[in-house]
């Protein structure tokens, strides 16, 4: 069996704001294997975004251990986490947040640009190809404000793959789109995941999308649903 790209081992998260403690996640254990397409579902406030932030190295757990490609990353400092995100992880957000001063192609290449001009150059053909694959071939030199919401989000999907990440984290990537555009973007993510062998972890409220994922992780009140405490692979396969 392939090495998991992300492993969570009894991960917990409590927010501390002054004297106020807000426990959000409890005892979460599961792993994600390369190329897997995983949907995270759960009610509002159940802790989905918090979980995604922990896996995406944007935040640190207050209990347990997280490993990315077998590296223990739970307690890395801010700089090391930034570097790990830059090199190994991709992100898609509910809002595209493309930089309005740069063209679509430049935006897609932005994660590469952070690693230097040479690297950006080397990735440009691949990014052009991907943008063509998502139907943006005639928008390469256009700046984002001139695109529709769906087109912008497709560009953001391509951007998340720029640094050839091990795993892409997407927090409600279709939440801000009409159902047609949302479907387009979702199909795109699935296709690119399959073609590039990149694992995707997507938070969604749409059960239709969840049903089409390789696996669904359900959260209720900060716990995995159907996972008795201490069983590591507590996720329920969707089919």
């Amino acid at each position, binding site marked *: 069996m392939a090495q998991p790209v992300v492993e969570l081992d009894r991960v917990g998260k409590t927010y501390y704001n002054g004297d106020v403690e807000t426990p959000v996640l409890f005892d979460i254990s599961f792993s994600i294997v390369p190329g897997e397409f995983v949907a995270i579902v759960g009610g509002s406030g159940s802790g989905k975004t918090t979980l995604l932030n922990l896996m995406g190295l944007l935040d640190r757990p207050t209990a347990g251990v997280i490993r990315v490609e077998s590296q223990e990353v739970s307690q890395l400092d801010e700089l090391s986490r930034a570097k790990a995100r830059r090199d190994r992880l991709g992100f898609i957000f509910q809002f595209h*947040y493309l930089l309005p001063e740069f063209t679509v192609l430049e935006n897609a290449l932005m994660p590469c640009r*952070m690693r230097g001009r040479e690297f950006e150059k080397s990735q440009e053909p691949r990014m052009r190809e991907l943008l063509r694959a998502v139907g943006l071939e005639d928008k390469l030199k256009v700046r984002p404000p001139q695109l529709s919401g769906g087109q912008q989000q497709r560009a953001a999907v391509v951007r998340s793959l720029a640094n050839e990440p091990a795993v892409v984290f997407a927090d409600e990537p279709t939440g801000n789109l009409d159902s047609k555009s949302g479907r387009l973007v979702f199909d795109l993510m699935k296709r690119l995941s399959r073609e590039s062998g990149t694992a995707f972890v997507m938070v969604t409220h749409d059960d239709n999308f969840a049903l089409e994922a390789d696996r669904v992780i359900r959260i209720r009140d900060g716990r995995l649903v159907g996972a008795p405490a201490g069983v590591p692979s507590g996720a329920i396969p969707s089919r």
Partner: protein
Amino acid sequence: MLSYFIRSVAFRHLRYSVSQSLLTIGVVAISVLLIIYLRTIIGGTQQRITQNTTGAIPHITVEPPERTPVGAWQLSSLGLDTDNLYVGEVVNLPKAREVIEDWRLWLPSLDAVDPEVATVSPIVTGQAFMNRGSRRQSVRVTGVIPERHNGIVEIEKNLDAGRFIGMVSGDVVLGQKLARDFGLKLRDKVRLVGPEGLTLNFSVAGIYTTGFGQVDDGQVFVTLRDGQSLLELGGSISSFGIKLTDLYDAENVARRMVPVFPFKVQSWVVQNPNLFRTLDAQGQTRDLILIMTTIASGFGIGSILVMVVTSKYREIGILKAMGATPGEIQSIFVLEGLLLAFIGCLVGVPLGVLLLKGLAAIRSVGPDGRVDAPFLIEIDPMLLLGASLVAMATGAVASWFPARKAGQVDPMQVIRGS
């Protein structure tokens, strides 16, 4: 440090907020222009005033120490000899007329006292009457060694006729106005009567116009020896005049000389306290204006960057999520501040030079009928550089705080859409 990523994002921000950028660049350019303009104009005016004041006088004067005679009855106040009774009338004794007798011994050490010393001129000076026919006028006789004294006040260059350097015993060199009043031409004879009544005959060897009133109007130059004879000073002189290479260093040099020489050493600064105070106040006003404009331009850059950072809050969060470090984000905005300042300099410095060149070309007719430049303008490359550096430093400081805020944006907050 300034990677391709940092540079490209900073450049784009400026390029796509043209009107904001232009506004800031304008503010910086004006402040640079003001620095260059004010420093040059006021510097020039000050230099002109100072030169007019010090042009005809020594930068440092070395005189005999003042000795006021003390009456025997005053000894008690000095703590001396108190047990005596004095009988008699109180008279005020005149100040003893002091001279420097052994000046030949001091001259070499004065010449060598400081590398700044350009000229040392032994001087005898006193009042005398000038007679010719029925005309008689009081003049100030100055006996000098012309080769040396020409370094104190430029006579040779300002001669209308005759010579100054190379004058010999029996020669007198005087100003154009005096010559006209007496109807004197070169080689005309004139008589000088000393304070003790001694009369000597002179022939006019040179006539000059220096433009300095105190030299042109009532002063006549004779050789040092003739001066000593006329004023009956024997071999003594009245004072030494010293000219320095840098007149603004006079007070320092004078202070260094005081403990070394048994004389009264005074700089022009001490002798012209009002001038010095005026120049000082003028300089302070100028500096205050410059500090204010610099601060204003700093606020200009700072507020623009606060706006940019606020409006880019989401993009900054996303860049950080994608792996940009706080340092990189901060560098982007500091670089923007520096670029705005730099472009401001690129605009402000040529504008300043242009303005000064324009002012320097102005000519006006003075009250004496001479055509002259009203502004004394010297464009100092160091000033251009200095003004630019001030603007750049202001840009760096002003952008530092907004940039730091940008570096600290929390990507998680952006992701949550709050």
